[in-house]
Structure formats: C-alpha cells, structure tokens
C-alpha cells in the first residue's frame, strides 16, 4: 500500500475547510443532476443511457474505421489530422507549427487530455506562452496546480485563495469579491484572445461522418479560443470519436445534465475545418491532433475497454462517497474520482499506485450515475485481482489462503471462530474499544482506530442452533 495515497487521504480528511468545500460543491452538482434526470423531467433517461452505451461500444469496437472516416471528412473540409503517440509528439507538432507560422502566443480552452500530457509545461519550456482561458483553469495555471475535479477544476479554492493568487501573479489589488475576480480575469484574457496566434482546444466529441469536433462549455472561452486566432488546434484522445452527428441527439441530452444539472451547457460548438471561403470570421487553419498516450492499451481487454466510453461528465465524482471525502488531489494522476481510479492503473500500470483500486467501498453509486453505463465497480474488482496476482509472498495472500482453507473445512472454521472470540474481552456485552496488545495488529488496530468492535457472543449461532 503506497503511503503517498494514504498520506494525501489523511491530509485531506484532516482539513475541515477542504472537507466542507468538497462536500458542498459535489453535493450541489449531485442534486442538480438528480433534478434534471428525474422521471417527470426526462422520462427516457434510462433508455438514453442504454443508447449512449451502445453507441460508444460500437464506436470503440470499430475504432480504426471511425478514426479513418473522421480523418477523411476533416480533410475534405480543409482541415488536417495528425496522430500522436504521446505528449512529446503533440508538443513537437504544436512547436513546429508555431515556428513555421511565427506564432508566440497561444490561448487554450479546457482540455483534460492536454493536462494529461502536461502540454502547457512542454510548450513553456520552448518559450511559447500558452494561457488557460477557462476561469478555473486560469486560476490554477497561475497557482501552478492541477485540476481538482474533472468539471469544476478549482473546487478546492476559496475566494480568499483566489484573491491571493491574483494579487501575487497579476499584481492586482487584493479583492475577495468573486464578481470582481471574474471581471479581472475576463479583461486579462480578452486581450490574450485577441492577440493570440493559435487557439488550442480539446474536443468533447469527434464526429466521424461530419469530420467535425464538438466543444461543450459555459463561459465562451472555447468559442473565443477557436474563433479569434487564425489557427485552431484541437487535441483529443482517439476514444472521443462517435459515428454520426445525429448521435449527439443522445449524448448532448446526457452530458450537461450529468455534469452540472443543466439541460444543455451554454455553448455547444460544432466545428469542422477552417472557415469556409465566404465566411467572414473563423480560423484559417484547422488541425486535429489524435492522441494515443496509452489508450490502445485499454482496448485489448473487452471487459476493461468500456473504461474508454467516458464522456468526462464528472457525475461519478459527485456521487462517490470516497471522492467526496478525499478530493481530487489525493489521486495520483490528473483524472480523479471513480473514473480516475480505473483508468490510472490501466494507463500507468497497476504497480504505479497499487492501493488505488482498493480505495473504494464498491458501493456502486458511480455505475448508477454514469451516462454511458461504465461498470466501474466491475473494472475495479478486475484491477484488484491483477494487483493481487502480481503481489506474491505477502502476508495478505497467505491470510486469504488460510481463510480459503478454513472455509472449506467447516469444523476447523467453527473452532477458529470460537478461539478468536475467546481471546477478546467478553462479559458485559458492551462494544469493545481496545484489545490486548497481542491482538492489536494491522486490521484490528485499523478498525479500532475509528470505531468499536462487537463483543463476541457467548455462543455462536451454530451452538445455539444445535441446542434447539
């Protein structure tokens, strides 16, 4: 068990203000979702989920076909498609293009995929200024932090934190009024939008039959990123592809509702290629970068492949009792919450953070809310068996072997149970707070650190039954 995971969890649990912030913010998003998927509001919600799951399954099961169709159609509209195996290749593409065009300033809209590959950092090393334009992401960029939540990146920051960041980094007068903080960011970023040479976006969906990308947002920064600069680069994981534009009739009904409880986000952009010859504005160049970065590793196993269906709504985070206590920074990678728990080991290897698949009570709330019906608990269990199989010679494996033996030998099982019971204090039937040092090991100590143990009864059920 990595102590780093445990340490982060401990630190987060020990911070009452943070606990409050995480719980309240996720609670609001959770309740907002419930209100718009209720039976009387969206009667075909379950049917839509099934459709979304089937569409994603079809797209992923035939991914190569749809990627090729997507590329053909992007190119037919005057755009380009570049495949990149990893982060450095994406950075190289952007740097090379920027150099050729003499570009120096980049504006960026929110993209978890670019977080995944630390794109801003890579570009920064080569002297390119790449500015995040989503308010939360902008604040985090100034603070040099990574996102706390897939949809609400600065969930953990208070207005006081933000005031301090803006003062320190922008030399602005200290102001804790949120509207003013937002207005300041708006005016700074407006200048960036209008001066930028390149706009980099992510993509919520890649539409194969149209050769288009879809961007879903509330602020307008993605629209500005992709409409103001002369060059637009969209970076997206290969798994984002969907077969047809009309499939959006299913996905768009689920995405905003699941993420924030809105019927639709404020802006949904359907972008294909550079501006047409007669259009007045829009970029002159449209480049789509398709990223692998390990996604192809999730494809071979049909049970785990569903991890790629994710549309990044964040609903699983908002409903997860574990996330709501430990927050986004306890997770070892940029993706947090239940989805983060299943894709991180698959991308980075189960050995990267072997405790991660076990940091779940398997309550199943995530699977219940996932709009594309990813069976997250099932994948967690599968990952657990992978971790267990590579960890040989451990005490735990021995303990379970003994357990399995006892469970196949009922008399020994019964005797073992009575023996353990007799070692603990019995008598008044009160729940036990402490045990003798001999028994105060590992699991028992962990249990007792948080709650009491039940007193062992004078007779087991077996014994009572026999006496009837």
């Amino acid at each position, binding site marked *: 068990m990595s102590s780093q995971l445990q340490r982060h969890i401990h630190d987060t649990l020990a911070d009452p203000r943070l606990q409050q912030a995480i719980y309240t913010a996720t609670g609001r998003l959770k309740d907002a979702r419930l209100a718009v998927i209720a039976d009387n509001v969206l009667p075909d919600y379950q049917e839509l989920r099934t459709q979304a799951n089937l569409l994603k399954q079809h*797209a992923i099961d035939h991914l190569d076909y749809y990627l090729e169709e997507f590329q053909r159609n992007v190119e037919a509209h005057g755009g380009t498609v570049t495949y990149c195996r990893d982060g450095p290749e994406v950075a190289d593409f952007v740097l090379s293009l920027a150099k050729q065009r003499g570009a120096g300033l980049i504006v960026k809209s929110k993209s978890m995929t670019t977080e995944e590959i630390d794109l801003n950092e890579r570009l920064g090393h080569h002297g390119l200024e790449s500015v995040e334009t989503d308010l*939360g992401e902008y604040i985090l960029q100034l603070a040099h932090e990574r996102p706390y939540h897939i949809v609400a990146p600065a969930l953990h920051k208070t207005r006081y934190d933000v005031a301090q960041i803006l003062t320190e980094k922008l030399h602005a007068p200290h102001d804790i009024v*949120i509207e003013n903080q937002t207005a300041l960011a708006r005016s700074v970023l407006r200048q960036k939008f209008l001066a930028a040479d390149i706009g980099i976006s992510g993509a919520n969906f890649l539409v194969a*039959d149209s050769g288009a990308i879809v961007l879903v947002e509330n602020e307008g920064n993605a629209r500005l990123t992709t409409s103001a600069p002369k060059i637009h680069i969209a970076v997206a994981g290969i798994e984002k592809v969907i077969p*047809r534009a009309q499939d959006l009739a299913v996905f768009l009904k689920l995405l905003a509702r699941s993420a924030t409880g809105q*019927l639709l986000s404020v802006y949904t952009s359907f972008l294909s290629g550079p501006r047409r010859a007669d259009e007045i504005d829009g970029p002159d160049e449209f480049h789509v970068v398709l990223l692998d970065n390990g996604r192809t590793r999730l494809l071979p196993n049909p049970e785990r492949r569903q991890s790629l269906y994710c549309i990044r709504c964040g609903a699983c985070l908002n409903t997860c009792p574990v996330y709501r206590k430990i927050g986004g920074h306890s997770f070892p990678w940029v993706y947090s919450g239940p989805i983060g728990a299943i894709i991180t080991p698959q991308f980075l290897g189960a050995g990267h953070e072997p405790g991660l698949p076990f940091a779940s009570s398997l309550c199943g709330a995530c699977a219940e809310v996932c709009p594309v019906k990813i069976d997250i608990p099932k994948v967690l269990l599968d990952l657990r068996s992978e971790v267990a199989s590579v960890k040989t010679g451990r005490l735990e494996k021995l303990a379970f072997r003994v357990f399995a033996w006892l469970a196949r030998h009922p008399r020994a099982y019964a005797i073992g149970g009575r023996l353990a019971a007799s070692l603990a204090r019995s008598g008044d039937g009160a729940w036990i707070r402490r045990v003798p040092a001999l028994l105060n090991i590992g699991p028992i100590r962990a249990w007792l650190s948080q709650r009491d143990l039940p007193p062992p009864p004078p007779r087991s059920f077996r014994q009572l039954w026999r006496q009837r």
Partner: protein
Amino acid sequence: MAREEILHRVRTALGRTGAQAPPPPPPVRLRIPEIGLEARVASFTTRLEALAGRVCRAALAQDAGALVSRELGNRVAVASNAPYLQECGITGLPNVSSGVASRDRLRELCASADVGITSADYVLADTGTLVLLSSPQEARLVSLLPPAHIAVVPSDRILTGLDQLFALLPDPAVSTSSMVLITGPSRTADIEQVLVRGVHGPGQILVVLTG
C-alpha cells in the same frame, strides 16, 4: 509513422482488419413531437427566462426594429449581415454598424461594441437555445465578443428540440464551419460555486421573436 502504428495497435487490439466495414451503428430515434407554435414559443420563453435571458415578442418585423431601438438606447451595437435584420430596420439604426465583410474590421467593431445583434437559423423550444450557423450573413464574433447579445428571429424558426435540429441538419458540416448552440448568457461557477454571468461571452441575452 505514428498514424500507422496507432491504427495498427487499434486493429490488433480489436481483432479487426483494415478493410472491414462495421455493421451500421445502433439506430438513434429522433423524436419530433407535434407541438403548436404558441406552445413552442411559451416553452422557449420559460426555458430562457429561467436562465436569466429575456424574451420579447413583436408582431411584425418593423415592431422588432422599434423594440431593439428602444432597447439599445445610446449603446453602440454591431449587427450581423442577416437579411432579416435589415428587414426589421435594425441595420439602419444610427448606433448600429453592419454590412461588414472584413474579418479584421468586424473584430474591431465587436471588441468595442456594447451589444451584438444577430438573427438565428433555428431556435430550440425545449432548452431555450439559439442555433447560429457561421456564414457570410452571420459571423461568429457578433454573438460572442460584445457583453450583450440581441437575437431577432421569426418565431416559425422555433423547432421542438435537438432531435428536430438533427433531423433537419443531419450533417451541419455540409453548410458551415461552425454551428453553435447558445443556451442563455455566458456563466461560470468556478469560484466557490458562486454563479457569475458574462465571463467571456455575453452576460445578457435578449431574444425578440416576431410573428
């Protein structure tokens, strides 16, 4: 080459060969209920007003023009080249710049204007949404840069919802490089979940429905 390598990995993982066309994707049933015009107007109005947008009705095009004129007051506006705005007499208003075809000039105007005025290609009743397709008549930045947005739309362009939109436009890319669905004023709740409007896009939106 990255492309070949990635596609090869994908095919190997899925057990597919390159030439294999998949079966058709699962069908998407687009539902278009029969809803009368007045009901669609009412639904659109309710939805947009719930998002702090405003909706007004004008019987005739020229009434819309008068309404917009009053609404503008002294504010400086930039209007798109939508023919309907001309029909409404909006493009002729004194503080409205219009008929711009130069990207740079339009950008300057949008960056300094108080209000951006557009029409809309479609309107979606069940979500309170405007649908704008980029074209010589409708530039992207008019509904994006100025802090306020007024859209003047004949009410017969109101569709029931997304399903009807995709039934009419199964492939928006055929007609335009940019189709944007605008549902209310720009907003964020990124700081302490406190709602702030008008972050990057317009913080105020008024839709004038005619007819």
